[in-house]
């Protein structure tokens, strides 16, 4: 176990030495400071009387719902509903920010481990190749967890302290963000093992994220595509990671509505698992 921890330490040491942690820390801090300044709430005795966004008075937020008689009524939004709605939106944005930043931060790590000259020493140690890879991925997971906890944790603190309403469901975003970061990192691991190029890792991974934006409209698109290509499109939709679609469960988990569709998340997890299995097979077979 101590040996695997050695790999975790190496990952942290590299992230630290390359000032990546510093960069992430600064970006996250700026983000939550913007949040703190932008959102100014007037709270009088526990109820919301006004919201100022970037200094603009938006008045007290309202919600429209149906009363028992079926007439729509507009009334002042409760503080809880307001906080939770905002937090759901923030979780969705945070999911993108944390994953994109995180992936960028870790893209060069594995190519550096597999670099000829360094890999020779590492893989000559009395550890299996799989335990070295596991230690590395564990290190990346830990980096991702720290990043997500810092970003989400601070935003959570700021909003909760300001409103006095503690919506702990917001923190459920953290494990989802970390797991999606690892899913996308699986692509990087496979490419790094096969090619050793960190540029390629970034291009393909970000490419898949952009492609997943197209899949947001997969239901409408499917109808417009001609039959032979339609099945290709549907196949790709199921095979490739549905990164963009996962924004919805992340937001809903933090908000009021229950999550209705876990499929994009689960199919992404399966995709990620396949990437790691393929990467492990390539790594074990490879000559250094």
């Amino acid at each position, binding site marked *: 176990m101590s040996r695997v921890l050695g790999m975790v330490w190496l990952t942290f040491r590299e992230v630290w030495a390359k000032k990546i942690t510093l960069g992430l820390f600064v970006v996250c801090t700026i983000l939550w400071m913007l949040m703190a300044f932008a959102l100014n709430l007037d709270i009088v005795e526990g109820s919301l009387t006004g919201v100022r966004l970037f200094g603009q008075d938006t008045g007290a937020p309202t919600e429209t719902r149906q009363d028992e008689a079926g007439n729509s009524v507009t009334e002042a939004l409760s503080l809880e509903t307001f906080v939770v709605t905002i937090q759901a939106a923030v979780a969705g944005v945070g999911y993108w920010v944390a994953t994109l930043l995180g992936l960028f931060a870790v893209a060069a790590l594995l190519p550096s481990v597999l670099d000829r000259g*360094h890999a020779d020493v590492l893989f000559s140690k009395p550890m299996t190749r799989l335990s070295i890879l596991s230690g590395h991925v564990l290190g990346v997971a830990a980096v991702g967890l720290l990043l997500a906890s810092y970003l989400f944790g601070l935003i959570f603190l700021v909003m909760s302290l300001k409103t006095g309403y503690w919506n702990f469901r917001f923190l459920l975003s953290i494990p989802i963000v970390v797991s999606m970061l690892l899913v996308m990192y699986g692509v990087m691991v496979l490419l790094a093992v096969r090619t050793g190029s960190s540029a390629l890792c970034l291009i393909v991974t970000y490419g898949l994220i952009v492609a997943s934006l197209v899949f947001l409209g997969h239901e409408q698109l499917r109808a417009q595509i001609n039959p032979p290509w339609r099945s290709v499109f549907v196949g790709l939709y199921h095979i490739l990671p549905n990164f963009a679609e996962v924004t919805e469960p992340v937001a809903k988990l933090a908000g009021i509505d229950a999550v209705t569709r876990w499929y994009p998340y689960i199919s992404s997890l399966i995709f990620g698992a396949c990437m790691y299995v393929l990467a492990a097979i390539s790594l074990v*077979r490879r000559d*250094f």
Partner: protein
Amino acid sequence: MSHAPQAAFQVSQLTKVYNRGFRKEGVRALESLDLHVAPGEIFGLLGPNGAGKTTLVKILLGLVKPSGGTATLLGHSVSDARARERVGYLPENHRFPGFLTGGEMLQLYGQLAGVSHRDRQRRVPELLDLVSMGRWRDTRIKQYSKGMMQRVGIAQAMISDPDVIFLDEPTDGVDPVGRKDIRDILLHLNGLGKTVFINSHLLSEIEQVCTRVAIMNHGRLAKEGTVSGLTSEASNYRLRCGRIPASIVSDWRLVEDAAEETDDQRTYTAAELELDRLNTLIDILRANNVMISAVERDRQSLEDYFIQVVGRESTP
């Protein structure tokens, strides 16, 4: 009771073909290689560039998969990670993470090799002092010179107190004093009963420390034996004597060293003679009334021998 000593490592019929993508023919780096190194030896492997020396070491360390044959290291198959438990390795062209300090690097590799925290605290400063790098312990590796990298690299190979150490070109980039230091370290390790395996181009180095050497060429073992055994197989002799008749000089392809000519004494060199042929030559000279005052064996250096073996092999 006597039984064959357990090998430090042993390879038999070892073959490696590197694939080079589709359609291209693979590179045959090793061809049915047999080699046995006993515990406690300092074994030197020589060979021209591309002979397959590094490939052999990498197969033993599990870095490269053999295409055929078997290889065992300290009694374990090389595909088993446990085989590397008591082994140290300094690769050629190594690049340790530049962001680590020398001390951190040794700590890390010690931890990965399964050295306990307590032992690491003790061994890291000890080893850095052994390779004269104690002062540089807290400096980042990216600021080291080439020879300094090589020194900490050797310390790295010794961190787990291994029984077998593989050094691929250990003196590459090291100054003469450093080379002497490294030779002393190797002899010291050997004194502790460790097996040392060196790949090198620096033949003089191998000659000075190795108990046994092998010469490899085109993935095959060309010669194997002790340094003195290999270099004395056929020797050059220097004869100090009176003038030798021209017919004998040309028959025996003797070379006269004009610089050492005096009134009645000449010096001739006879190249690559076995002992019995030398004696035949002496008989002939005596029959021709040539006065002989000295016969010296001109011991070949390993380098001459190397060039002779490798040169001969590469001419078709």
